[in-house]
């Protein structure tokens, strides 16, 4: 199937400090993609850059093509149509992502007027239907509510309704459940999954929660230091992680049924973006690093000839490096 969205060599630098170091990513219609990694690895920045939502101080290069049309540095009038109309985004903290002085109905119908050219009456009726669709009880009465009158979970449902208003082809959910209670988290994820099934919309779920991602998504990319270090089918995430970083992330999850033991932590800290080494960004923290790891950039390569599973690590792709010696 033809790619709906194609990101190639996307680089972002803030004040000369690179945050994204060449992201290549394709998204097909109706698929669900998970993006995981620690804070600052570039998960959100990828999409903010793609939609032109970063401030003027960010230097962005590369290419983001939506159905063949280049979005990077596209005119504002064009981007306004894409945002919300073709690619919608929801954010981490729904309470602060909704305008506190405008009603729910007002904020949803704004998107409807922009992308579906509805008049006021039709827009309010459609806003009501959308609130119903995202499972807000007593939608008619909630239309006049302000965000502070709703709970966090309800606000996130309102955000989702607002994102659906433009009937987008892609929904980017940037840590949509991080700020919510665990029970509400499950409901919101279920809602996202259900909407994706019903509307054939592609879903990108950004999260640092590996469990959430493997449950909701078909495909997962793992980011580290502004690079994609591994890309794999979600079903393999827990069983066959290849990159030492992905393995480290999984090893750091506490186990419920295994005997109690010390929690594993990946040694070291995420390096400052300005001080990342050439070559593999994970090399300084990797227990399998060898001299060559830090020498040149390591490309994503298929594992065992399976193009669905790729990793950027000398040790796991093609032939293992000869004379493997752990560097001191």
């Amino acid at each position: 199937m033809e790619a709906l969205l194609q990101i190639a060599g996307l680089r972002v630098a803030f004040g000369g400090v690179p945050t994204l170091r060449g992201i290549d990513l394709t998204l097909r219609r109706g698929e669900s993609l998970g993006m995981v990694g620690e804070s600052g690895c570039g998960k959100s920045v990828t999409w903010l850059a793609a939609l032109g939502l970063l401030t003027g101080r960010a230097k962005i290069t590369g290419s983001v093509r939506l159905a063949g049309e280049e979005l990077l540095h596209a005119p504002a009038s064009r981007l306004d149509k894409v945002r919300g109309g073709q690619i919608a985004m929801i954010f981490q903290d729904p309470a602060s992502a909704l305008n506190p002085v405008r009603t729910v109905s007002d904020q949803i119908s704004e998107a409807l007027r922009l992308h579906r050219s509805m008049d006021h009456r039709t827009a309010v009726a459609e806003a009501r239907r959308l609130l119903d669709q995202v499972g807000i009880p007593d939608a008619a009465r909630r239309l006049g509510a302000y965000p502070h009158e709703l709970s966090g979970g309800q606000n996130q449902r309102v955000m989702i309704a607002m994102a659906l208003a433009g009937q987008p082809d892609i929904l980017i959910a940037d840590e949509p459940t991080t700020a919510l209670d665990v029970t509400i988290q499950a409901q919101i994820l279920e809602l996202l999954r259900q909407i994706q099934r019903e509307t054939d919309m592609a879903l990108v779920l950004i999260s640092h929660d590996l469990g959430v991602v493997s449950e909701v998504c078909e495909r997962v990319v793992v980011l580290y230091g502004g690079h994609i270090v591994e890309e794999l089918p979600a079903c393999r995430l827990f069983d066959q992680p290849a990159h030492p970083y992905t393995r480290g992330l999984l090893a750091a999850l506490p186990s419920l049924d295994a005997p109690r033991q010390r929690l594993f932590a990946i040694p070291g800290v995420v390096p400052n973006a300005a001080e990342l080494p050439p070559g593999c960004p994970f090399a300084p923290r990797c227990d399998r690093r060898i001299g060559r790891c830090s020498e040149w950039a390591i490309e994503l390569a298929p594992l065992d000839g399976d193009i669905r599973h790729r990793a950027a690590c000398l040790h796991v792709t093609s032939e293992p490096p000869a004379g493997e010696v752990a560097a001191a």
Partner: protein
Amino acid sequence: MARFIAVRLARALLTIAIVVTFAFVVLRASGDPARALLSPETPAEAVEAFRRAWGLDAPLWVQYARYLFAVVHGDLGQSMRDGRSAIVVVAERIPVTLMLTVPALILNLLIGIPAGIYAALKRDSIADRLVMMVAVVGFTVPSFVLGLVFVLAFAVELPWFPSGGAGGWQHLVLPVITLGLGGAAVLARFSRSAMLEVLGQPYIRAASAKGVPWPRVVTGHALPNAAIAVLTIVGFMVGNLIAGTVLVESVFSWPGIGSLLVVSVASRDLAVVQCILLVVAAAMITTNVTIDLLYGMLDPRLRDLRSGRR
């Protein structure tokens, strides 16, 4: 809402009572009106008679009780200088002062708020730095200095406007600008920071992400939120404007409340000073209540706090 208004009203009355009491005590403790008004050669009997006539011979608490009784009955006393009712003396100056303060306030708002918003939207540009530089100068130079500079420049060196007094619109230009610029500078700085604060909020990015064109993000999403913070400053500024009026009226010999206050304090014209303070306190309270009501209109969160929901 009814409870909110009742509380505000009670607080307003308490404030007025405190102002009245404070003025009463300070004025009488700081000098003798008989000494200030009568010439040094006045015979001692005449001074005594003056004191008796104005009730100044009674103990302070008796004077205070009499005064409060009179105030409650709407009598603010007579001016010691010309015997007319203090209310009349003050009331005839109010419109004269408003001729200065109202245009000055409008000037504040019309220059300060747009300049601040513009600077915030053009953050870190040359335009932003320029606006902020002018604003820093504008609010560090005291209004009486600015007034004197204006007189020297535009009344003495370039005789475009009169240097003082009241008359046609030409007389208004220099004092209104003097009074308006300082406030505009303060307002520009606050509007800028309020706007920057709001522009950094997640809901602004969310509005952009939804496809709202930038000009409408600014007018429809950012401004209504920034207005809440700017309103607070406008409230403070009305107070500053009243204080500034006293100075500016003196510099430009403008016959308003400010000049009257200066003369009345110097001559210990007790009833008039107290009446002015009452008027000023009432004006400040009215402003604050108006601003509180406007808050409720701008911010739905406050509306709920007041009506006791959530």
